[in-house]
């Protein structure tokens, strides 16, 4: 099993370790999932996400490459701006979801999923024109700091000047790439840095009284409350971005890209099924794979993620349903071990995001 540069730090902190995408990763620490989740929403949590892949695409046609392999448009995107997008295949399915940041008009930084690293790299390589160089940043780690205190913590512990940094923007400070974004719905940062500096950086953050280390289990419950997709569960090579309710990431002027035929047709006419948020109204917890039923108990879809929401203190999930059941407010049922739990289709996110630019409800 592979290890990140912070492996020993996790063990020293008493983490319960487990395998994720070929890496031995912290699932939770001594506080446990519930406390870690709520701590992140109230203060700041620090996450080791170094198992994720970091790549750099550079060359005159780097932007053209992105316009082929993703439905997004990077023309006119300001330098330093990050975008959430997907790699699509020729059939319009999703190879991976990723964040792409424009470093310059000819240079882009991308963070890809750990479990998709090898396949993505091979895929991008196969699509790369000769003028574009792809560099896999194997010697870099990635640390996420998330929560309402994240800005204060990063400023106080490392004296980094990030106070003016806007949501979905990156700033380079020496060898650090600091992006104001994350996977929790809280204000926060993801910091890419050379792995040799990662343990010191991690320790410094953890010394702050408002910081606790957070494992992958709470990372999952935090992202679920935000309605973010988990690759391999909520999206995969068969689902299109339109089915996944990600049509917003298709660029306005995007015309010919991989899978554009299906994706643009579905964008126009709608898809047969759609990813939705589901709130369980009865007691019980519905998880991935649970069948969603209509009022006549006929199956209309399946949960692709599900679990208990520590913030809402109820079970939530996301899944695909036939599109005529996808409107918020639709009453459905979710079958858990033979019990049919009352449930409702709801708008995602399930919580009010607290990111820098989000308006508070």
């Amino acid at each position, binding site marked *: 099993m592979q290890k990140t540069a912070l492996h020993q730090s996790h063990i020293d902190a008493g983490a319960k370790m487990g395998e994720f995408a070929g890496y031995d990763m912290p*699932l939770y620490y001594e506080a446990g*999932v519930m406390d870690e989740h709520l701590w992140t929403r109230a203060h700041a949590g620090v996450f080791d996400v170094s198992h994720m892949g970091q790549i750099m695409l550079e060359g005159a046609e780097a932007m053209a490459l992105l316009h082929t392999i993703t439905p997004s448009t990077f023309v006119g995107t300001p330098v330093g701006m990050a975008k959430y997008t997907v790699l699509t295949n020729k059939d319009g399915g999703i190879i991976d979801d990723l964040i792409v940041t424009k470093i310059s008009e000819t240079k882009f930084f991308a963070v890809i999923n750990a479990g998709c690293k090898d396949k993505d790299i091979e895929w991008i390589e196969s699509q790369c024109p000769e003028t574009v160089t792809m560099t896999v940043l194997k010697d870099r780690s990635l640390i996420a700091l998330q929560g309402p205190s994240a800005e204060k913590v990063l400023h106080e512990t490392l004296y980094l000047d990030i106070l003016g940094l806007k949501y979905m923007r990156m700033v380079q400070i020496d060898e650090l790439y600091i992006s104001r974004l994350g996977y929790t719905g809280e204000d926060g940062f993801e910091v890419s840095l050379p792995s040799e500096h990662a343990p010191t950086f991690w320790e410094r953050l953890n010394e702050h009284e408002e910081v606790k280390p957070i494992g992958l*289990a709470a990372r999952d419950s935090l992202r679920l409350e935000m309605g973010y997709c988990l690759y391999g569960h909520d999206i995969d090579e068969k689902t299109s971005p339109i089915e996944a309710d990600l049509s917003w990431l298709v660029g306005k002027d995007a015309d010919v890209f991989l899978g554009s035929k299906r994706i643009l047709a579905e964008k126009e006419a709608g898809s047969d099924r759609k990813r939705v948020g589901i709130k369980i109204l009865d007691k019980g917890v519905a998880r991935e794979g649970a069948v969603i039923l209509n009022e006549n108990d006929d199956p209309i879809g399946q949960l692709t993620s599900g*679990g*208990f929401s520590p913030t809402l203190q109820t079970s939530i999930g996301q899944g695909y349903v036939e599109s005529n059941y996808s409107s918020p407010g639709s009453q459905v049922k979710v079958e858990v071990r033979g019990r049919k739990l009352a449930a409702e289709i709801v708008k995602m996110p399930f919580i009010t995001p607290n990111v820098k630019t989000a308006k508070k409800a």
Partner: protein
Amino acid sequence: MSGIKYTKDHEWVMMDGDVAVIGITDYAKEALGDLVYLELPDEGKEIEKGRDFAVVESVKAASEIYAPVSGEITEVNAQLVDMLDDLGSDPEKGWIVKMNLSNKSELEMLMDEEAYQTYIKDL
């Protein structure tokens, strides 16, 4: 309590006269993490040793609770659903079901307190 017997799956059985009282150990409860829901069986249900008869949900996962012995469920501790903290080794508060045994000799295959404590020390 000396009369309590244990399984390798961390369930306990205490005989109260002819009635078997069943629960899970504090060790199991700790390992499950933050508990959020307990799904109980119906009274009158016949259960078979080694088969699951209840499910406890934590934030992260659903875990089945296996019957340490076979028999008929005579009583269910419905209060536990709202008092998940009570689940555990304390037979007064933490019991899950009571049952009539169909085969008392099954008790002899279970671990006593000392054997169980040795067993969890090595886990």
